[in-house]
């Protein structure tokens, strides 16, 4: 896809997520929006996958460590052909393959069930080590939230990425600076994230997580690097809807009819200008 097409695809994804979460009466809109471009760029420009063979052994792996951004992953997987787009409307309903958080045994294309925060980077470590043992070329991508970096296990994972120099693993931190109860600063300050990662022995790259061109070039550079790289993608929680942006309240708030109409209008207007 061209950069313009990527930006449009991510914006269309936001509209679909809005409908899904509105219909479901629950769901995490803020965090789904902050990683809309990251997920889109990964799946359109990088992930080597085959929707007709979701378990293809040589496929690239994707771990959505911030599992609450499931709607963004679901829209992406449906667009890539892993399941019918009509299923998107069943999010969080009884019997749906689209659980509130991604479940690998129910939803084709999900490489690991996620939801309990702070585990995804470690899962990525295991996948990357496997590829190394098997001498396979596929890559593993992990999207972590910056909120979940409160969990100490991430730092165990970062230490092990550095120890084994897992250059076949790309961890992207969706740094939207807001968690459930408030801002990162209020709840658990991260201070110098880049400095911390560097101190763990990891190379870091930074980019604007809503600019598809920057995202693509940064991920490409990380993939080509001989050292393990963590990408810090600077994002905005609730990106695209002015009354949601940067608001902890929109971490997982039901969307009422009025908010839905306003959000839809704003997202559509932006889409039409892209």
């Amino acid at each position: 896809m061209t950069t313009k097409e990527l930006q449009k695809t991510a914006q269309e994804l936001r509209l679909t997520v809005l409908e899904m979460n509105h219909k479901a009466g629950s769901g995490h809109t803020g965090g789904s929006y902050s990683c809309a471009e990251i997920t889109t760029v990964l799946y359109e420009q990088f992930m080597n996958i085959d929707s007709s063979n979701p378990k293809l052994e040589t496929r690239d792996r994707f771990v959505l460590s911030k599992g609450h951004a499931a709607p963004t992953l679901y829209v992406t997987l449906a667009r890539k052909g892993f399941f019918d787009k009509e299923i998107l409307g069943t999010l969080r309903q009884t019997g749906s393959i689209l659980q509130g958080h991604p479940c690998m045994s129910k939803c084709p294309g999900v490489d690991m069930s996620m939801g309990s925060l702070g585990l995804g980077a470690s899962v990525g470590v295991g996948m990357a080590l496997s590829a190394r043992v098997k001498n396979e070329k596929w890559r593993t991508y992990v999207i972590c939230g910056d909120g979940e970096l409160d969990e100490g296990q991430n730092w165990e994972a970062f230490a092990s990425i550095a120890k084994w120099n897992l250059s076949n693993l790309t961890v992207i931190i969706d740094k939207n600076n807001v968690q459930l109860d408030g801002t990162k600063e209020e709840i658990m300050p991260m201070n110098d994230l880049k400095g911390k990662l560097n101190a763990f022995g990891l190379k870091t790259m930074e980019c604007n997580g809503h600019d598809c061109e920057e995202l693509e070039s940064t991920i490409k550079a990380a993939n080509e690097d001989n050292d393990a790289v963590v990408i810090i993608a600077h994002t905005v929680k609730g990106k695209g809807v002015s009354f949601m942006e940067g608001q902890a309240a929109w971490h997982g708030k039901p969307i009422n009819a009025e908010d839905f109409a306003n959000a839809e209008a704003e997202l559509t207007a932006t889409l039409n200008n892209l």
Partner: protein
Amino acid sequence: MSKPQRLIFGETLVELGSSVENLIVCDADVSGSTQTKLFGTKYPERFFNFGIAEGNMVSAAAGMASTGMIPVVSTFALFLALRAGDPVRSLVAYNKLNVKIAGGYAGLSDFADGASHQTIEDMGVMQAIPNILVLCPSDITTTKKAVEEMIKYEGPVYLRLSREAITQEYDENINFEIGKGITVNDGSDVTIIGCGIPMRFARCAVEQLKTEGINARLIDMPTVKPLDSKIIANAATETGAIVTVEEHNIFGGLGSSVASLISETNPIPVVKVGVSDKYGESGKYEEILARAGISTEEIIKAVKKAISLK
């Protein structure tokens, strides 16, 4: 012949390493204690030491299993069941991933280190999590076979291991099957069902009871979950009273599961011998076991109580 159970575990992994190419062994800085270092020395490219980071190790193993590998994660039972409890539950069990969880130094077998390193809760945790099999073998033959069978089995398994030396009680040709109990001694007055190290006390108890004219059936139960419901139902019908023996808290372990099963199928008395809901302590192994409530004498007492309740 006797040998530390951990050594049998380590040696069996090495044996399997040549034929099972996708076998990976992970440890959390105690590979010298758990004996996974033997595998690490032989197959360094398939051995990963995660340091003292059990949650990271188990989560990474989930990632490995999702790509077709068979990872064995090994450290002290306590840290697998509780420190890494979330990834065990949310990744390994929920997704039925082919991870083998080998909890070493279980029960009070890390006797000198004291309660901080002893594990009386692990089978309770593992049994309460769907999709995980729980194995607790008692002798050399069944330990070796348990390791082999858990690697063959497709799905999550918790293998409970002791620091302690164990003896060879069964012939190598014994028909070991996951989910099946082993009748060690036939008897009609009462049935003793045990697992793990305290089977040694159960064997002594059976002999002493014989001198008192009590014929106890003895069943070794190397699979705690799923329980061998048939062998238990037969024992209940034929002997009318059951005593369970384990090196675990009396809540959540073998005894709880047997009692729970029996109450729904063949309601008869079930008396539990195990750690009586308190923490262990430092000391000599058999001394602290006895102080916790596990000894030949306690089993004999429990047998007489069970018979009196018939």
